[in-house]
C-alpha cells in the first residue's frame, strides 16, 4: 500500500474490501460457502453491524478446546472459549486467544508453490489443478512402500482420512508426531498405565477433586496435555471447596510457571525423582501402618535423600502430608519423564497413587475417556519410532514424503539427522499454512487452510471426564488461495481412479467428515441426537462438536501396581559437562507460537522475557562463572552448541541450567525467523525405557562468549537505554 495514501482513500479501499469479502452460513452442511452479497441483499442471518458467531475448535495445540469466534462482515474478530465444550467450558489459553494472528498472519503461504530448489525462498506459484495433479502423480507413480505421510497431532479428521487413504493404496500408516507430545512424554505415560494397571490408555489425573497434589515435574498449568482443563482443576483444588484449600507441592529442578503456584517447591536433583517417589512411598506405608508393599521395599530413605539433595526431614514431612491427606494425588510429568529412567519414575508415581488407594476414585488417577470415533487412545510416535522413520528416509526407500501439521525440522533434535534424511527423499510435499523450516525443505507447498477456515474434528485425548469429539467449521471464507488438504487428497484420489477413488468417493472434506459422524447418530448418552446426518451435522456445527453427558473415564484396577519391583539407581546422563540441561516448552508461546507477534510480546510468566531465548542460571553459578544478566553464553553438549543470553534466575538449582523451547527458527515468517536459539540442537537422540526422547538427560558446559545481548523483559531493568541492538 502507498505510504502516502490519504484517510479518504484508505476508507475507500477498506470499504471495497469489506463489501467483497464473504461470509458463510452456520445453518447446515447443505450450504458450504456462501459468497457475500451486497449490503442491500444480505443473507437473512446477517445484519449490518451485528456480529455472527461460529463454534469451532482451536488448533493451536491438540487438546481440542472449543472456540466461539466472533465474525463481522466476513472477518474473524475475536476467539473466545466455547462454554458448551466440556474440555474448556468457555475458557482459552493465550495461544487460543492469538489464533487470529495465525489466521491473518502476513507470512502465510498464500498459494500453492513449487520451489526452485529445497531451502530456496524463490518459488513459482501454481494453480490448484496442477497441484492436485502433482499429488495424484506422487500417489500413483510411486509404489505404496515408497510413500510416507508425516502428520501432526491435529486435526484428527485429516489423520483418519490419510489412514484410510494409505490403507486403500497399501502404503504404511501415517506417522504422527508433535513437539508437545515429545516433551509431554506421552508414550511414557501410556506405557506406565499399561505397566501398572495392565490397561492401555492415557492417564487422567483428577486434580480438581484432590486435596493434596504432588507434581513430579508435570507442568500441568502450562502446555501439558490439556492445560485449560487442568487449570480449571487447579482452580477447583484451591477454592472449589469452601471448607478446605487444596495443597500443592511441586518437585522440579527449577520453578516453572506451574511450580510458582505450589505451596512447596522441592528442588530435587535431576534424575533422582524415582528415588524420591519410592522413598516417600515407603514412608507413607510406614506412617499408615500398611505392610510394606514390594514396590517400595527396596527404597532407602537416607540414600534417596542424599542422592536427591533433599533432607530426610523434608521427605518425612512430605510423606506425612501425603499419608494424612484425604485425597492425595501424585502426578508424573515434564522433565522427570524425559530422563533415562523416566518410565520408572512414571511407574513409581502411579504406584504411590495405588498405595493411597486413589486409583479410579474421585481426586485420583483414571484412564482418560476414549474419544468418539475411536477404539482406544492412539499415542503419537515416540522418539524411537521417529528415529526409525528417519532411518527409513535415510535408506532412500521413500520416494515421496507428505508432511502436514508438524514442523519436524525444527522440533526434532538435530542429532537425529532429519534434514540429511530428507535429502534422500526424491519428492517432499508440504501442506503447511506457514513458511516453516520443513516447508522450506520441501519441493512443493500446497497450503492447507488455517484451522479457522477449516472443517474438521478433534478426538479429545484427555482433560475432561466425558468422551468428546470437538468439531471445527470455517468461520470465514479462506482468506488466501489455500485449499483444504483433505479436498486435495480426495480430488487426487478421484484423478487416480480405481479402488482408491471408490474407497474415497466423497465430494469434499465435509462429506468425508459426515461419513464418520454418521456412526454417532445412534450412539447413546449424546449431548444431542438427530434422526439423520444432516440435522446431526447442523447441531455438530452449532454446538462445536459432540460429546457424551456421562462420566466416561475408565477406573482401572490397581492390579499388581504395588507388587512391581523397582531398581533404585538414578538416571544416566549424556556428556561430561558440569551442568544438567533442562529444556522446557515455553509456557506461553509453546512449540509453534513464535510467528504470532502478540505471543512473542507476552512476557514469560516467570522471567518476564519477551521476543527471545534466555538461559536460566542460578545466581551463585553465574557468579562463579563470572556471568551477569544478558551475557551471551555458549552451551555445549555432546550433540551441539547454541548461544543465548543469560537470565540470572534465582529459582533454579545451581547445578542445572534451563532453556525454553519455541524460538530459534530459521524460517517461519518475520516474527519468528532468526530470533533466539533452539535447545533441541543440544539434544542427543537417547530415549527412556518407553522410547520417548530423554530430553532432560544431557550434561552441558557453559562458556562465556564475551558478547552481551540485552533481553527485553517486562520487569524493571535499570539503564536499558543505549544497550539494545549492541552485541
Amino acid at each position, binding site marked *: 500500500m502507498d505510504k502516502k495514501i490519504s484517510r479518504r482513500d484508505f476508507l475507500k479501499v477498506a470499504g471495497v474490501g469489506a463489501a467483497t469479502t464473504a461470509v458463510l452460513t452456520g445453518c447446515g452442511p447443505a450450504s458450504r460457502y456462501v459468497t457475500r452479497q451486497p449490503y442491500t441483499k444480505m443473507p437473512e442471518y446477517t445484519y449490518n453491524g451485528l456480529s455472527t458467531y461460529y463454534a469451532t475448535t482451536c488448533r493451536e495445540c491438540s487438546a481440542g478446546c472449543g472456540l466461539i469466534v466472533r465474525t463481522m462482515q466476513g472477518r474473524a474478530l475475536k476467539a473466545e472459549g466455547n462454554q458448551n465444550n466440556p474440555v474448556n467450558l468457555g475458557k482459552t489459553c493465550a495461544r487460543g486467544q492469538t489464533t487470529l494472528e495465525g489466521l*491473518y*498472519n502476513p507470512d502465510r503461504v498464500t498459494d500453492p508453490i513449487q520451489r526452485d530448489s529445497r531451502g530456496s525462498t524463490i518459488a513459482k506459484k501454481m494453480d490448484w489443478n496442477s497441484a492436485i495433479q502433482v499429488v495424484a502423480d506422487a500417489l500413483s507413480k510411486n509404489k505404496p512402500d515408497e510413500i510416507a505421510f508425516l502428520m501432526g497431532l491435529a486435526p484428527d479428521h485429516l489423520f483418519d482420512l490419510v489412514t484410510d487413504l494409505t490403507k486403500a493404496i497399501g502404503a504404511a500408516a501415517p506417522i504422527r508426531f508433535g513437539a508437545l507430545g515429545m516433551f509431554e512424554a506421552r508414550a511414557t505415560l501410556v506405557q506406565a498405565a499399561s505397566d501398572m494397571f495392565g490397561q492401555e490408555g492415557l492417564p487422567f489425573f483428577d486434580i480438581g477433586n484432590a486435596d493434596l497434589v504432588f507434581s513430579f515435574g508435570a507442568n500441568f*498449568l502450562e502446555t501439558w496435555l490439556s492445560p485449560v482443563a487442568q487449570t480449571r482443576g487447579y482452580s477447583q483444588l484451591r477454592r472449589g471447596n469452601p471448607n478446605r484449600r487444596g495443597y500443592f507441592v511441586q518437585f522440579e529442578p527449577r520453578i516453572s510457571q*506451574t511450580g510458582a503456584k505450589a505451596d512447596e517447591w522441592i*528442588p530435587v536433583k535431576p534424575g533422582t525423582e524415582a528415588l524420591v517417589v519410592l522413598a516417600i512411598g515407603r514412608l507413607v506405608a510406614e506412617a499408615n501402618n500398611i505392610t510394606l508393599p514390594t514396590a517400595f521395599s527396596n527404597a532407602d530413605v537416607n540414600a534417596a535423600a542424599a542422592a536427591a539433595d533433599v533432607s530426610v526431614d523434608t521427605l518425612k514431612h512430605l510423606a506425612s502430608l501425603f499419608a494424612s491427606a484425604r485425597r492425595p494425588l501424585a502426578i508424573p510429568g515434564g522433565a522427570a519423564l524425559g530422563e533415562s529412567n523416566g518410565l520408572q519414575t512414571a511407574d513409581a508415581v502411579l504406584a504411590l497413587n495405588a498405595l493411597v488407594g486413589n486409583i479410579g476414585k474421585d481426586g485420583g488417577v483414571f484412564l482418560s475417556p476414549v474419544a468418539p470415533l475411536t477404539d482406544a487412545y492412539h499415542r503419537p510416535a515416540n522418539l524411537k519410532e521417529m528415529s526409525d522413520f528417519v532411518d527409513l528416509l535415510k535408506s532412500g526407500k521413500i520416494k515421496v514424503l507428505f508432511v502436514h501439521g508438524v514442523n519436524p525440522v525444527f522440533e526434532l533434535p538435530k542429532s537425529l539427522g532429519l534434514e540429511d534424511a530428507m535429502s534422500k527423499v526424491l519428492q517432499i510435499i508440504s501442506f503447511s499454512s506457514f513458511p516453516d523450516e520443513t516447508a522450506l525443505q520441501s519441493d512443493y507447498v500446497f497450503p492447507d487452510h488455517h484451522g479457522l477456515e477449516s472443517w474438521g474434528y478433534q478426538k479429545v485425548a484427555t482433560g475432561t471426564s466425558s468422551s468428546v469429539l470437538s468439531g471445527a467449521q470455517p468461520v470465514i471464507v479462506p*482468506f488466501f488461495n489455500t485449499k483444504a488438504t483433505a479436498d486435495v487428497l480426495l480430488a487426487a484420489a478421484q484423478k487416480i481412479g480405481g479402488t482408491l477413488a471408490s474407497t474415497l468417493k466423497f465430494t469434499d472434506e465435509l462429506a468425508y467428515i459426515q461419513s464418520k459422524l454418521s456412526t454417532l447418530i445412534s450412539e447413546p448418552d449424546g449431548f444431542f441426537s438427530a434422526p439423520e446426518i444432516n440435522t446431526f451435522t447442523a447441531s455438530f456445527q452449532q454446538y462445536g462438536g459432540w460429546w457424551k453427558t456421562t462420566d466416561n473415564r475408565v477406573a482401572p484396577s490397581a492390579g499388581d501396581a504395588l507388587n512391581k519391583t523397582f531398581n533404585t539407581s538414578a538416571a544416566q546422563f549424556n556428556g561430561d559437562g558440569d551442568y544438567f540441561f533442562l529444556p522446557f516448552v515455553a509456557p506461553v508461546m509453546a512449540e509453534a507460537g513464535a510467528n504470532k507477534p502478540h505471543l512473542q510480546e507476552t512476557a514469560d510468566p516467570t522471567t518476564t522475557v519477551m*521476543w527471545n531465548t534466555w538461559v536460566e542460571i542460578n545466581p551463585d553459578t553465574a557468579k562463579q562463572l563470572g556471568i551477569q544478566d544478558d551475557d551471551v553464553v555458549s552451551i555445549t553438549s555432546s550433540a551441539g552448541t547454541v548461544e543465548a543470553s543469560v537470565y540470572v534466575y*534465582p529459582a533454579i538449582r545451581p547445578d542445572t541450567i534451563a532453556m525454553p523451547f519455541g524460538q530459534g527458527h530459521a524460517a517461519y515468517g518475520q516474527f519468528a525467523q532468526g530470533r533466539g536459539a533452539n535447545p533441541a540442537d543440544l539434544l542427543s537422540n537417547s530415549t527412556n525405557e518407553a522410547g520417548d526422547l530423554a530430553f532432560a538427560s544431557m550434561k552441558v558446559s557453559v562458556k562465556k562468549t564475551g558478547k552481551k545481548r540485552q533481553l527485553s523483559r517486562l520487569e524493571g531493568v535499570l539503564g536499558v*537505554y543505549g544497550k539494545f541492538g549492541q552485541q
Partner: protein
Amino acid sequence: MPKELKSPTSSANTAQDVQGIWGMVVDQDLCTGCQACVAACSMENNVPFVGEVDAGYGRSMQWIRIERFWQGSYPNIKATPYQPVMCQNCHNAPCEPVCPVYASVHSLSEDLNLQVYNRCVGTRYCANNCPYEARVFNWRDYMDPRQRPELVTLANHFNPDVTVRRRGVMEKCTFCIQRIRHAEDTAASENRDIRDGEVVPACAQACPASAITFGRIDDPTTKVSQAADTSRGSHLLEELGTIPHVTYLAGGA
C-alpha cells in the same frame, strides 16, 4: 467490597444520573500467571505489539500485565502470587487532575476513568502520576498498515467497537467499556436491567482459572460484591487513598 476497605461511590450530581458502578475482583490464589488475559485483552482492544527493542525499553502496550516477585533466595525461594495489574479505575484518580487537556477524565455517573483519545496530546503526565503504571503510550504507529504495509493483513481482526489509537496517544484498560455499553444497549432495548454476569471483560472471559470476576460493586448481591467480601481482600497501594475499583484477594494459604 471487604468491610474495612473504602468503596468507590458515584460522584453524580443527581440521583437519576447515577449508573452502575463497575468493579473487579482478582483472586491471586487462582491466578496461574498463564497470560491468557493479557492476550485476550490485546486481541479485544486492538492493542498493538511494539517489537523486541521497544518492548525492552518498557514501551510494550498491554493494558494488563502479570507481576511476580521473588522472596528469599535459593533454596528457600518463593514466587509471590501472580498479580494481574490493569487500570484500577480509581475513585480518586491521580491521573486525572494532571491532564492539561481533559483527556483523562472521570465519569461521574459510573465512577470510571475515561481516556478521550482525540483530546490526548501526549504530555504523558497521567502516566507519570499513575501509581500503578497502568497507562501505556503509543510511541509510534506500531500497527498502522500505512506505516507498516507488511502488517496489513493483521488489521483484519481489529475490533470495530474499539478505536484504533495513533502515535502520541495515551491509553489504558477501559474495563472493556464497549462490552458494558453493548450490554446496556441490549438491556435497554429489552426494557430490563443488566443481569449480573452479563458484562464480562475479555480478561475475565478468557481466564482459565476463573480468577477474575466482574460486575456491579454497588449491588451487594452480585458475584463480584460477594467475592470481594472476604478477609483476603485488599486494594493496591491502599494507603494512597485512590479507592480503586479492583479488589485483590490474597494468594497463598
